[in-house]
């Protein structure tokens, strides 16, 4: 089973566009296999990626009923029960103030497969990733990390399997129950990797999958999911596995305004970051608003608490506000402000500002630039850093 090994922690395996609220897509289930969004697209979602997301200089030709790019590898038509797709993301991280100024990142090389047998859905992802010591620093408490020992040199390319679950659609597809390894339902599924809201709540869909049982509900006014977490079985020994629940519910105030609640409580005999028995809380609000068809505002604020059996150990928070502007179809300008505090004696919160641009220059092809300004706060000092992350993303 070694070939299932998970790595590639500095990775972004999927796209998730909370800003699709601009096009009245409040629910994610029509376009994504995961009923709460992110990851593999359905055939309908692949078509919309061509119709609504890709860059165009000329209006789309109406006679092209189903875009060719809706097929696997842009041309291969598959039987209805089989949905295959892939995800390749390569990044270059430029850190002018760091000792290593240029970090090439093979962020994702995943193959997605979904089998549909009537209401039954089976989904799995697998791929390869490269080891990165930086990943360890990011992941510490995260779901997956390489088995190899970084002190013994670079590790070889290894296999990655983030998701595998079996589900059933019920009640005219309004309800989906799933069992397996999946994303934790919590907050915005924003694709920036990694933001404080995702890292501190450990719900980054790049690395935060856990095994459990979930039920998702999607209607025109309300969507949500609750998941019982049995643990991340790719972390051992068992004492390090978190068990508990994660859930969100989002209400549609109008066709372009949504307000959501998230809640997560997990317990581990030994927390991955402290080694102590720990109950971890994250509870918060998130919102998606599209005042116009060209502009979306996304926001999330989470209260965090860590509790040992004896006492409340730490309090913290994480928050994010993002504005997404369509300069034209397929060309996005995004501004993000974020903050986070781990409650570990920092004199103040860590702060971040992102100025990003995403260009969907061809069907299922994205070129993205992230200018990331960070004030990282620790117990001993606050440091400032600027990073430029350039990504090429192909969604096969």
């Amino acid at each position: 089973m070694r070939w299932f090994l998970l790595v590639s922690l500095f990775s972004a395996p999927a796209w998730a566009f909370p800003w699709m609220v601009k096009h009245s897509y409040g629910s994610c289930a029509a376009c994504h296999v995961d009923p709460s969004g992110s990851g593999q697209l359905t055939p309908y979602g692949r078509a919309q990626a061509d119709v609504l997301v890709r860059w165009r200089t000329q209006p789309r030709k109406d006679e092209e009923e189903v875009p060719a790019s809706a097929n696997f590898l842009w041309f291969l038509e598959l039987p209805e029960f089989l949905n295959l797709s892939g995800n390749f993301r390569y990044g270059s991280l430029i850190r002018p103030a760091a000792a290593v100024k240029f970090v090439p990142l093979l962020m994702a090389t995943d193959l997605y497969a979904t089998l549909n047998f009537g209401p039954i859905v089976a989904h799995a992802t697998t791929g390869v990733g490269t080891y990165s010591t930086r990943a360890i620093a990011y992941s510490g408490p995260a779901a997956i990390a390489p088995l190899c020992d970084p002190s013994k040199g670079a590790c070889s390319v290894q296999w990655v399997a983030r998701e595998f679950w079996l589900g059933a659609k019920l009640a005219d597809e309004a309800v989906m129950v799933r069992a397996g390894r999946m994303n934790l339902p919590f907050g915005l599924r924003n694709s920036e990797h990694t933001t404080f809201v995702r890292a501190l709540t450990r719900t980054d869909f790049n690395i935060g999958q856990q095994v459990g049982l979930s039920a998702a509900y999607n209607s025109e006014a309300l969507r949500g999911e609750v998941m019982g977490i049995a643990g991340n079985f790719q972390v051992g020994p068992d004492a390090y596995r978190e068990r508990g629940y994660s859930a969100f519910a989002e209400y549609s105030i109008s066709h372009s305004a949504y307000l959501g609640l998230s809640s997560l409580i997990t317990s581990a005999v030994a927390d991955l970051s402290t080694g102590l028995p720990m109950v971890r809380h994250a509870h918060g609000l998130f919102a998606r608003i599209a005042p116009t068809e060209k502009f979306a505002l996304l926001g999330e604020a989470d209260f965090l608490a860590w509790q040992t059996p004896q006492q409340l150990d730490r309090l913290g928070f994480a928050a994010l506000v993002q504005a997404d502007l369509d300069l034209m179809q397929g060309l996005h300008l995004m501004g993000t402000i974020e903050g986070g505090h781990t409650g570990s004696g920092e004199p103040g919160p860590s702060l971040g500002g992102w100025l990003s641009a995403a260009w969907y220059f061809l069907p299922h092809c994205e070129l993205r630039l992230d200018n990331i300004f960070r004030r990282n706060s620790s117990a001993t000092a606050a440091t400032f850093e600027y990073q430029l992350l350039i990504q090429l993303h192909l969604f096969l």
Partner: protein
Amino acid sequence: MDRTSLLLLLVLALPAWASDTFPAVIQNKYSLASQPPESCALCHTNFVTGLGTVNTPFGKAARLHGLVATNTAALNAALDAMATELTDSDGDGVTDVAELMAGTSPNQGSGTGGGAGGGGGGGTVLPPPRYGCGASVVPELLFFASLLPLLRSRRRRP
């Protein structure tokens, strides 16, 4: 954040967090000539005190044995338990309590036993986490086993 924390703490009616007397308690417990040389840094990383800063190897081991902020009885009980379990937080072969009594650091492998340090606290402290499918193959096997009936039923269809 400090104000927020303070407000939340007040709301939750939790006790105060300063444990200024702990070094003195250790001094008295073991009849030491002076307080432990590391003082606050015995438990708090880089002398920074406050919520979530008890992260030195010795501090973590003490918390695993029931240490609670400001609670001297809990500190005494934790030290007794660590003495019984021969806890060695820095893995240098000298137990934490012996290092406290000798005036050496239980965090930095400075005991007479030498050693590289960095141990996990000894006694009942867990090994470091392992990652990857080697940690457990059960969920993966269950998942793919569950797919088999689907594939078989598919084949039966004309």
